């Protein structure tokens, strides 16, 4: 198992290396460099050239790439053009908020999606199945920001059930340990903080969960339907096992395998979805920060964000592979 993990970690090097090249080339091809964003519109060409020189943008591409790579490896993602602070620091500051939101969304998606997909498959063609399939189609089709707006307008501003913005109600004091509000609240037993932070997570969490929820529901349904027709399920029934044993040990255990893979990919994509959700709910995470960065052409932040998403993807995939090998003995053998 250890060898498997080490081998997978080594495979990350070419993946991330290739990514850095793609990212660098992409940045080179972008129209309108930072000299247009940073300097006022009436700046002269000389002034723009001077800025390009000071940012090292006049060096040969190869030299630029190597220094770009060296800085990344040193954990230096550059300085944000908006705040003039290191991008890494800005991300660290906002990461707990986004992570908390992502985990909330994933918990919502899994706890609803798995049982719903399973029941839809069991009652195939029934009302629940129809609702689950239709609902998930709607979930996939609805743009995240639109759903976020609807949720905010209806449940926060209309019904007043949940707060409409930020991570915590203003004026609520809290002790900071990790930056994860819910976790800190539990650790310091500040239960009012825990509840308040959770209430702030519900609506953005739901909005962000819509796509993973839809995908997990559909995949679980399809996978359970497929496994229910497998020969080994017939064998299990022929052995006279209790229905619950057949359903858990023989159907679910196998049906979950492809869903686990999908969950990994979905978890990675949550960061991208967070950009829109967070900006709608003024949620102070990486997403809303990046949203502003796109408007300001804050390239260091955008580059850093893409790298961060890619790294998250790669590591989540590693986790998926490891859990997959625990779930499926056939993968272990290879």
């Amino acid at each position: 198992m250890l060898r498997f993990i080490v081998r997978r970690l080594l495979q990350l090097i070419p993946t991330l290396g290739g990514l850095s090249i793609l990212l660098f080339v992409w940045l080179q091809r972008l129209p309108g460099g930072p000299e247009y964003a940073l300097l006022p519109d009436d700046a002269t060409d000389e002034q723009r050239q001077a800025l390009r020189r000071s940012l090292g943008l006049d060096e040969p591409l190869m030299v630029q790439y190597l220094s770009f790579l060296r800085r990344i490896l040193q954990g230096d993602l550059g300085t944000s053009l908006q705040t003039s602070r290191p991008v890494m620091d800005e991300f660290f500051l906002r990461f707990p908020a986004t992570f908390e939101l992502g985990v909330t969304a994933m918990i919502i998606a899994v706890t609803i999606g798995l049982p719903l997909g399973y029941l839809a498959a069991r009652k195939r063609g029934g009302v629940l199945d129809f609702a689950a399939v239709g609902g998930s189609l709607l979930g996939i089709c609805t743009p995240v920001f639109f759903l976020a707006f609807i949720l905010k307008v209806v449940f926060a501003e209309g019904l007043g059930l949940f707060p409409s913005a930020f991570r915590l109600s203003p004026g609520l004091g809290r002790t900071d340990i990790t930056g994860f509000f819910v976790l800190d609240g539990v650790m310091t037993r500040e239960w009012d903080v825990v509840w308040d932070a959770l209430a702030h997570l519900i609506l953005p969490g739901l909005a962000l969960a819509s796509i993973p929820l839809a995908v997990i529901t559909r995949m679980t349904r399809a996978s359970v339907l497929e496994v229910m027709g497998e020969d080994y399920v017939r064998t299990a029934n022929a052995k006279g096992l209790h229905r619950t044993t057949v359903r858990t040990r023989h159907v679910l255990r196998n049906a979950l395998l492809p869903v686990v893979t999908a969950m990994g990919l979905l978890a990675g994509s949550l960061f991208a979805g967070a950009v829109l959700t967070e900006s709608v709910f003024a949620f102070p995470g990486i997403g809303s920060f990046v949203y502003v960065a796109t408007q300001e052409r804050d390239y260091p932040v955008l580059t850093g964000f893409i790298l961060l998403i890619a790294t998250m993807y790669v590591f989540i995939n590693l986790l998926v592979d490891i859990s997959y090998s625990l779930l499926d003995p056939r993968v272990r053998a290879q």
Partner: protein
Amino acid sequence: MSSSTPLLAVDELSVAFHRRGAGETRAVDGVSFTLEEGRVTGLVGESGCGKSVTSLALMGLLPDRGVEVGGSAVMRLPEGEVDLLRLSRRRLRDLRGSQLAMIFQDPLSSLNPVVPIGRQVTEILKRHRGMRGSAARKEAADLLYRVGIPDPTRRLNEYPHQLSGGMRQRALIAMAVACKPRLMIADEPTTALDVTIQAQILELLKDLVTEEGTALLMITHDLGVVAGLCDDINVLYAGRAVETAPRRPLFADPTHPYTVGLLGSVPRLDAPRGEPLTPVRGSVNDNIAWTDGCAFAPRCDHYTMECLQGPPPLVRTGDGTHIHRCVNPIDHADVVDQTVLESPAVVGEDEEERE
């Protein structure tokens, strides 16, 4: 025969599938046979003749929706006789695995790929014999050993993909015999295996039947298997038994043209090289409905207009154990001789692949 009433009496079993838009398909159309303790009964026929559906119907493993099962299948149990087709699902679940067991065709897909072999054996011991923990594991190892799996304690922790094909089929047989069932159904248990392993598996099944007095329903298209293993044989065609007889009369004196055709199409080791096989011409697609006459008539070399005058009646010949359903039976078949009967399982090729 061990008793006056048979262990299982299947009478006029019929299975029809209803599909929306496609109408009704009668997969099994009035099949009757009996099973006795300690005897092997064969259901023989080509693909689509209804032999697998018959076994699934007896086990209650057909889907709930869109299936209509008729007739009766009365089984003698210690507490009295029950009709397997009329049992509640809960009661049937109690019987399955303990009194009725089934061995399936493809051992790899019939085993759960993500559950260790040992667990797949112990789960049936837990369910029907109330065994737990190390006692169940020990019994599972004993069972694996009995069916010829070497080093069974190590195998308990292995997964299906780590076993060879023959080993997997042995593991499935171990699960089937775990609770000493009175009735075992084997649905083409050797089709997915190579010839030497086939012979070993058949030998194992034969021993289990002799030692435990289990009744075995052997479903196959392989006449070599039938000749080597079965005591009584039912030849199925298009969902009906067209000929039923003990082994010797069936091979020595087949009366139904379809049986004769099947026997004639067996590849022979002593035939000259390059000599073409004699297939049964046509395919099951040419069938007519049994209500219109003999379903086999369009493929039969002996058919007359009488064959198309409604379903042919059952006719008993000899001492009454040889039954056929043909209006133009073949009197004495010189097509086959005793060598087919004497040879062990020599037939490796699928009869039906040449259709």
